[in-house]
């Protein structure tokens, strides 16, 4: 083939290149001979390696070059001058020695005839330090953190209390303890706000519970009013029946007003019904005081209601719901109601049908009587605990002082029975109400008389010293400008149902509660005063009292009292004044003179001397006369008549 290309085939290099000359010629190493190769490979064998490694190497050796060990030994012997198997022989010998020793040891251990093998403590591996130190450090750190957290908690609570001026529970508890009775029952602190220790025998208990206020609430309260008083760390829980505000309302009413609707006015309910800050948390002191007041009012009302049922009055007392009705005087009723406003539901427990009573202005809540009721119950409490001596030291009961004296005084059965009678609270309050009405009425009567009667002035002075059931008024009757000449004074003692008048002449008159009697009496006294005053003026003027009579039998019959009269003669006896006073008509004044001017001798009386006898009396028109009042007029009249004409 003409186009054929010559391909040169070169065999791969079988020998390693020893050197490459500068002209690119390669100088090859002469290949190792067979024995040289075997010796080189045998030197590579490491007998310290494990057997399988060794095997691997052997296999490698077998696979790579296929030398026969037998040939090797032959070769070794052959090439003894180089001693290539020196190391192999040494190692084999060592191995043999060791195997022999091992066999001996195993024999000895197995036979256990000469020797016993004991485990030898392996040398302490001293590798603990770092790991363990770190571990301990970590553990101590964790423990310290726990301790510090605990300390921090304690300190935080302490500093918070100090720095923020938080109230201390125990300080508050101490204050509470100083004012209220407390005791510990298992885990709770329980207090008692009843009046038991003060002598009350009311069955309802007044137990309250004291707890610690939660801190969050205290914080909230403090943040809300930072300027205000610090909130208390205490919380008192009073039973629901004692919560809120209660009071006893006392009303006096006329019976004409509709009794059914005559209930407590809502204004009276509201007036003390709300404590300051009703919704907010009250201070424990106020709260307890309010609860105690509720308890007191309940006791008072319960007692009054029981008495109202027990008493057999002529007009029975009525107890309806929370209200007691008692008749004070005919036509006048006393209403005692218990109003309890326990702030929860804002519905008062008072009598139903509470209406705003604008019209019944006078039926306002009577604070004085309410106060008296409180006083009465407190007196009962006091009497319950304060027995007069001597009484047995062990027993709470003792005879009263009067009963102690009953023996020495030889009291009879009647007196002892009288002693055992005790006035109930209701009776006492009714008496006070009666007195209250009597006083009001007497005041009214006296004031109206003073308004009606202008001529003698009627001055009444109420005595400041009085008792709940007795007061005293002094009445002066006098004329303006003549109070030195004559004044009539009388004293009226206003009692519960009666009046006692002590008149000027020392007479004592007992009047009933019908005030017309007082009115009549005052009117009689006024006219009596006028008569005595005229006589006194006459005495001052030198006139002579010829006759006087307080009870004239002549004339028409007076509806009240009797007519009185007096007869006065002028100093020289030529003029006479006759005064007749009838309470229903008024005062009449007559004058006569002697010698009479119209004396004419008649057939019967011929002598001139008879003209010296007084003539006929002529009435004077008093209202036409000058003078400020009756006495003034009389004085003027007397002065006029005594002047020599």
């Amino acid at each position, binding site marked *: 083939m003409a186009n054929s290309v010559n391909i040169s085939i070169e065999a791969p290099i079988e020998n390693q290149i020893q050197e490459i000359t500068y002209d690119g010629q390669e100088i090859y190493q002469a290949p190792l001979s067979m024995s040289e190769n075997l010796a080189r490979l045998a030197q590579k064998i490491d007998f310290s390696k494990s057997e399988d490694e060794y095997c691997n190497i052997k296999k490698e050796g077998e696979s790579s070059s296929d030398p026969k060990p037998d040939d090797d030994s032959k070769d070794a012997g052959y090439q003894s001058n180089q001693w290539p198997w020196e190391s192999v022989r040494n190692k084999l010998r060592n191995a043999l020695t060791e195997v022999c020793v091992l066999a001996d040891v195993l024999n000895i251990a197995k036979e256990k005839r000469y020797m016993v093998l004991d485990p030898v403590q392996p040398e302490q591996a001293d590798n*603990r330090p770092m*790991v*363990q130190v770190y*571990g*301990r450090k*970590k*553990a*101590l750190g*964790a*423990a*310290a*953190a*726990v*301790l510090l*957290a*605990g*300390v921090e908690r*304690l300190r935080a609570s302490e500093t918070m209390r100090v720095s923020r001026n938080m109230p201390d529970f*125990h300080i508050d*508890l*101490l204050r509470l*303890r*100083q*004012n209220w009775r*407390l*005791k*510990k029952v298992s885990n709770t*602190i329980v207090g008692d706000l009843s009046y038991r220790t003060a002598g009350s025998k009311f069955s309802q208990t007044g137990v309250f519970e004291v707890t610690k206020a939660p801190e969050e609430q205290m914080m909230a309260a403090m943040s809300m009013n930072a300027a205000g008083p610090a909130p208390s760390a205490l919380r008192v829980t009073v039973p629901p029946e004692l919560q809120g505000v209660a009071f006893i309302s006392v009303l006096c009413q006329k019976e004409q007003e509709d009794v059914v609707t005559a209930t407590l006015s809502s204004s009276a309910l509201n007036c003390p019904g709300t404590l300051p800050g009703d919704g907010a948390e009250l201070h424990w002191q106020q709260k307890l005081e309010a609860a105690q007041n509720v308890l007191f009012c309940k006791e008072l009302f319960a007692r009054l209601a029981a008495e109202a049922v027990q008493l057999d009055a002529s007009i029975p007392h009525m107890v309806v719901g929370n209200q007691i009705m008692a008749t004070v005087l005919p036509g006048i009723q006393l209403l005692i109601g218990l109003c309890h406003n326990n702030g929860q539901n804002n519905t008062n427990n008072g009598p139903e049908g509470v209406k705003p009573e604008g019209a019944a202005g006078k039926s306002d809540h009577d604070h004085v009587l309410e106060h008296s009721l409180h006083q009465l119950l407190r007196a009962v409490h006091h009497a319950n605990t304060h027995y007069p001596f001597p009484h047995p030291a062990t027993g709470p009961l003792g005879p009263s002082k009067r009963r102690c004296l009953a023996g020495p005084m030889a009291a009879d059965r009647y007196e002892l029975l009288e002693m055992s009678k005790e006035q109930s609270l209701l009776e006492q309050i009714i008496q006070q109400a009666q007195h209250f009405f009597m006083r009001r009425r007497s005041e009214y009567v006296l*004031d109206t008389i*003073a*308004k009606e009667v*202008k001529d003698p*002035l*009627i*001055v*009444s*002075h*109420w005595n*400041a010293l009085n008792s709940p059931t007795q007061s005293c008024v002094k009445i002066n009757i006098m004329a*303006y400008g003549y109070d030195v000449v004559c004044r009539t004074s009388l004293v009226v003692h206003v009692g519960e149902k009666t009046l006692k008048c002590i008149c000027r002449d020392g007479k004592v008159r007992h009047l009933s509660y019908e005030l017309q009697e007082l009115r009549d009496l005052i009117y009689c006294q006024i006219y009596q005063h006028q008569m005595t005053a005229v006589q006194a003026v006459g005495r001052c003027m030198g006139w002579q009292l010829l006759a006087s009579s307080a009870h004239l039998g002549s004339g028409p019959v007076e509806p009240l009292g009797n007519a009185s009269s007096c007869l006065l003669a002028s100093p020289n006896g030529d003029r006479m004044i006759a005064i007749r006073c009838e309470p229903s008509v008024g005062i009449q004044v007559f004058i006569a003179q002697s010698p009479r001017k119209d004396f004419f001798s008649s057939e019967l009386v011929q002598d001139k001397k008879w003209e010296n006898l007084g003539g006929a009396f002529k009435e004077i028109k008093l209202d036409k006369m000058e003078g400020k009042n009756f006495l003034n007029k009389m004085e003027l009249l007397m002065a006029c008549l005594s002047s020599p004409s």
Partner: protein
Amino acid sequence: MHRNLPQNKEALLKSYTTRLKEDVKSMLENFEEIIRLAKGERGENESQLNRMTQIEQDTFEMQVRAANIVRAGESLMKLVSDIKQYLILNDFPSVNDAITQNSKLFRTKQQECDQKLMSLRDDIAADLYDLEDEYFTSIYK
């Protein structure tokens, strides 16, 4: 306490003492145990546990003991509070003092009020007398 306290009060006071001692003892013991653990006096060789497990166990034990110390401390605080409460509630002499003081205070206050009211009443009575005089002698009634 030489007074004859009721049985349960006596027991309560004793329980306070024992609580105090127990808490203090617990604090001390736990602290000692922590120190012992830190010193590593307990031979690890005796334990069958791995070393790491041992370390973990020690860590937890220390934490628990530290928490015990804290608990004992808080218990002491509670004890202090309890004793305070007991003292406040049962310290009758001081309560009696407070009551006496209060009653004295209120008595003086009452006297003051009474005196003031009396003088006021006297003044008013005198004035009322004059006013009544004036009113009833005047023409305006």
